[in-house]
């Protein structure tokens, strides 16, 4: 049994990155992900194998990650909101050149500078932000242990499959200090130099780019097996809630109470938003049951889901863009929506 520690999400991210073998971080301070940079810098003071660069902006941070991975080092960045927007140019380069780019995204409320803690408004941006086809791996952790594990999984997948990988979380999970019996994994991954002579990312002919894209699309299709969603109580449910991240954590808590009252409600929680768990969700959402989306955004998860699968039952939604969602309000809403 591991020892219980009192730790923030941002500290967990740094722990996870160091444990898996990351050695270089590029970052620019932005709430709510700033402490990832700060904690990593602190780690660097004690460990000479680790390094960091506080860049002039997120653009430089993102391209720094591109350069470092080309040189064969396990590197990452962390950002949020407007910083996530600025990262998109470099993420497009990573997507096209198949660089193992890793970013932790702690969502905050927008548009623009907005608020600093809670939001799921960067869902589409993170999954599909660049000019390209959105060939990105996006993990969506729902609790601190998952934040640790998915941070490591992002590094593993990025280096194994050579697509940019993200941990899409928010300020609640990153900044809250919680008691946790952390299960650590200390098995480090290895990296190889990617740069070689005459590497190309500009194409003269449409056909050349098209052919290259077919390979990338096929490779991305091949990793659809790694998509995952948590299913909770789907067997005899009359209503299915779809939510991810900390919003899903609120839904889970609401469901404990509602089930005590005899309401048969299930939770479907995508743990990867890309590749999207289409087959798994389709199996459950194509049976005519009523479906409720709960989001801290105006329907971004719903858009992703409905683009991928055909929902046959009635659909409704509880959208609270850039708002924290409490179990109580979910409970009230679901009671009104529930039919035997």
């Amino acid at each position, binding site marked *: 049994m591991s020892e219980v520690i009192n730790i923030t999400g941002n500290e967990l991210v740094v722990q996870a990155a160091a444990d898996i073998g990351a050695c270089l971080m590029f970052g620019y301070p932005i709430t709510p992900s700033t402490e990832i940079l700060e904690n990593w810098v602190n780690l660097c003071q004690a460990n000479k194998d680790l390094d960091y660069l506080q*860049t002039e902006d997120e653009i430089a941070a993102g391209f720094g990650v591109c350069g470092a991975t080309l040189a064969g080092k396990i590197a990452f960045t962390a950002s949020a909101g407007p910083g996530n927007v600025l990262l998109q140019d470099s993420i497009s380069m990573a997507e096209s050149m198949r660089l193992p780019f890793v970013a932790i995204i702690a969502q905050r409320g927008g548009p623009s500078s907005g608020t600093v803690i809670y939001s799921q408004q960067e869902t589409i941006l993170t999954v599909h932000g660049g000019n390209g086809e959105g060939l990105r791996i996006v993990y969506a952790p729902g609790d601190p242990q998952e934040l640790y594990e998915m941070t490591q999984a992002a590094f593993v997948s990025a280096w194994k499959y050579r697509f940019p990988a993200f941990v899409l979380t928010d300020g609640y999970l990153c900044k809250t200090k919680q008691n946790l019996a952390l299960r650590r994994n200390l098995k480090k991954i290895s990296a190889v130099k990617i740069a070689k002579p005459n590497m190309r990312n500009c194409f003269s002919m449409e056909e050349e780019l098209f052919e290259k894209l077919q390979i990338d699309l096929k490779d991305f299709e091949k990793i659809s097996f790694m998509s995952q969603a948590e299913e909770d109580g789907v067997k005899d449910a009359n209503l299915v809630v779809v939510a991810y991240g900390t919003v899903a954590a609120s839904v889970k808590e609401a469901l404990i109470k509602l089930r005590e009252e005899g309401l048969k409600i299930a939770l479907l929680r995508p743990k990867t938003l890309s590749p999207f768990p289409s087959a798994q969700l389709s199996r459950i959402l194509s049976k005519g049951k009523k479906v409720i989306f709960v989001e801290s955004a105006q329907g971004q998860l719903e858009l992703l889901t409905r683009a991928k699968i055909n929902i046959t039952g009635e659909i409704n939604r509880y959208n609270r863009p850039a708002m924290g969602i409490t179990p109580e309000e979910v409970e009230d809403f679901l009671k009104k929506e529930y039919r035997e």
Partner: protein
Amino acid sequence: MNNLPSTINEKNIPHSFCPGCGHPIALHAIASVIEKMALGKEAVVGLDIGCSLLAWNLYNFDSFHTHHGRTVSTMLGFKRANPKSLAIVYQGDGGAYAIGLQSLLTSAHRDDPLTVIIINNTLYAMTGGQMSPTTVLGEKTSTTPRGRNIRQGPKFLGPETIKELASERAYIARGSVENPIELETMIRKALERQRAGHFAFVEVLSPCPVNWKTAAHETFERLNELKTEYRLGELNE
């Protein structure tokens, strides 16, 4: 062909730059210096977007495209990850002094160990000759059809500006493809300075007859005249 440095990938000669372009002279100078210094294993070139990108298949050592204005950041990431590498940034004046200025100035200010080579042909060449920061007053481009006027800002002096905020140990120079021997000396010093752990910067005056719309003899005259606008030499030696 036999005179080409071994660092040049002969399979891809002839290159794909326009006739009369200055880029190949600067690119040849880089290849030649790397061969003479026997640094083919350490050298890595990041190519900005613009005409610089056409050099992607030219070298036998590591080279790759980056994004427009992002080559300094990318190569700094590379250098940080592999301090033994010899990281070279190859960029045009638009990439360096307009869209990428923030990272260029920051790297100079931090004295990052990079060698930055900027081709100054006074306009955006790949996109068909628009005004760039180095377009001189009165110069006609597709976005300054009556000639650049002072309301559009004076010409941008890259090395002179960088000198103001760079470390005293940085190497800062301006050469021209008109004098490839001197240019090679500057590039050699710029690579040596990076190896000593400091920022090194060479701006290279270079002709673009296609967008200057100049005949051969006019191209030489114009390149020669540019030396009165942009003074050649080492700024901090």
